[in-house]
């Protein structure tokens, strides 16, 4: 148990509470809370799952994709929530767990859809003359089965860690310039504070964007695994 894990538990509770409240009594004509929840859920349901996977497969993987999106989002946001100030995804465990889930899911999806040919087509893409396989097969293996999960986890982790470091740097500098620096340097505090402010806003974008990217890439991997030819 450390601070980041406590933040994860707290944000999960908040996420569950919010969605429980918003979807507790769903009405055909939505209220304000329900509209917001529907809008958020539609981002995953319509814009990601159904667009990329189609209605049928989209529905199959929707719970997983929705969970990945909202977990990532809820754990990214504390990076700019005052008092929490660090993202729940900025410790490697959470990105690893979700990357492993995505990895297992797209391999499962491929094996389930093309039991005989998924692995063969992954290693030996059809339509390539055989000598090329000497180069293509290691590349395909490396990119599909090793790089995909690692990049998923690291992209999220590094984005959140970097954002956190940037904010810490800006606000620590502001604090030092204003409190302790000699008087002719105090004005720099205004500049560093402005940077911190801008990057705080930027971090909101990054939090949403990384949640979207993680979910979208997971969906794309599933889609590629489901496609007839790789």
């Amino acid at each position, binding site marked *: *148990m*450390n601070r*980041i*894990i406590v933040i*994860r*538990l707290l944000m*999960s509770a908040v*996420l*569950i509470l919010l*969605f*429980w409240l918003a*979807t*507790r009594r*769903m*009405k*055909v004509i939505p209220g304000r809370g329900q509209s917001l929840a*529907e809008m958020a*859920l539609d981002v995953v*349901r319509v814009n990601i799952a159904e667009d990329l996977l189609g209605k049928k497969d989209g529905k199959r993987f*929707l*719970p*997983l994709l*929705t*969970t990945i999106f*909202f*977990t990532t989002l*809820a*754990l990214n946001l504390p990076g700019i929530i005052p008092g929490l100030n660090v993202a*729940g995804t900025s*410790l*490697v*465990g*959470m990105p*690893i*767990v*979700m990357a492993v*889930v995505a990895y297992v899911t797209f391999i499962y999806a491929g094996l389930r859809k093309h039991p005989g040919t998924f692995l063969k087509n992954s290693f030996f893409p059809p339509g390539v003359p055989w000598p090329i396989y000497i180069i293509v097969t290691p590349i395909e293996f490396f990119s599909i089965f090793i790089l995909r999960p690692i990049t998923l986890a690291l992209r999220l982790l590094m984005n959140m860690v970097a954002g956190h470091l940037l904010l810490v740097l800006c606000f620590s500098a502001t604090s030092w310039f204003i409190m302790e620096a000699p008087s002719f340097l105090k004005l720099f505090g205004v500049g560093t504070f402005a940077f911190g402010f801008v990057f705080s806003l930027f971090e909101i974008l990054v939090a949403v964007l990384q949640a979207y990217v993680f979910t979208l890439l997971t969906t794309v991997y599933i889609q590629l695994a489901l496609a007839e030819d790789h």
Partner: protein
Amino acid sequence: MLHALIAAAEETPNPLLPAVADLVWSAVVFVVILVFFWFKVLPNVKKMLDKRSEAIEGNIEKADSAQKEAEAALAQYTAQLADARAEAGKIRDAARADGQKIVAEAKDAASAEASRIQATASAQIEAERQSALVSLRSEVGSLALDLASGVIGEALNDDKKSQALVERFLVDLEKSEKAAK
């Protein structure tokens, strides 16, 4: 040496390996949220979306049937209106024809009456003229005879003769009248 390495490894965890607690709690968080979305939120949303599309379809159907009904009613009203118009036209035509007939009849009756009255009147006039003629003739005859008796001093008692005389006189008179005309 080896012992020292193991001890060092135990003391300072490998920076590339994530802490067990980190992984475990991450997994717990993920599973809890997954279960929540899978079995609570998404089924609720799905149920609501189905209900919504049902409601929308139902409303569209209702609107369709209402429109159809309205169209049928309109067609019926239009037909009725056309019927009523045709009926009114018929009645108007009949009334016009009746009126014309009545006027014609009245005219006929009036002219018949007029000619009848005229005929009666002329018949009466003729009859009166005849009677006047007759009485005039007999009177003129007796007057002439009286005059002649006076002139010649004897009574013209011979009726036959006197009658013939009068007749001849009258015929002469008529002739002279006609000549005068």
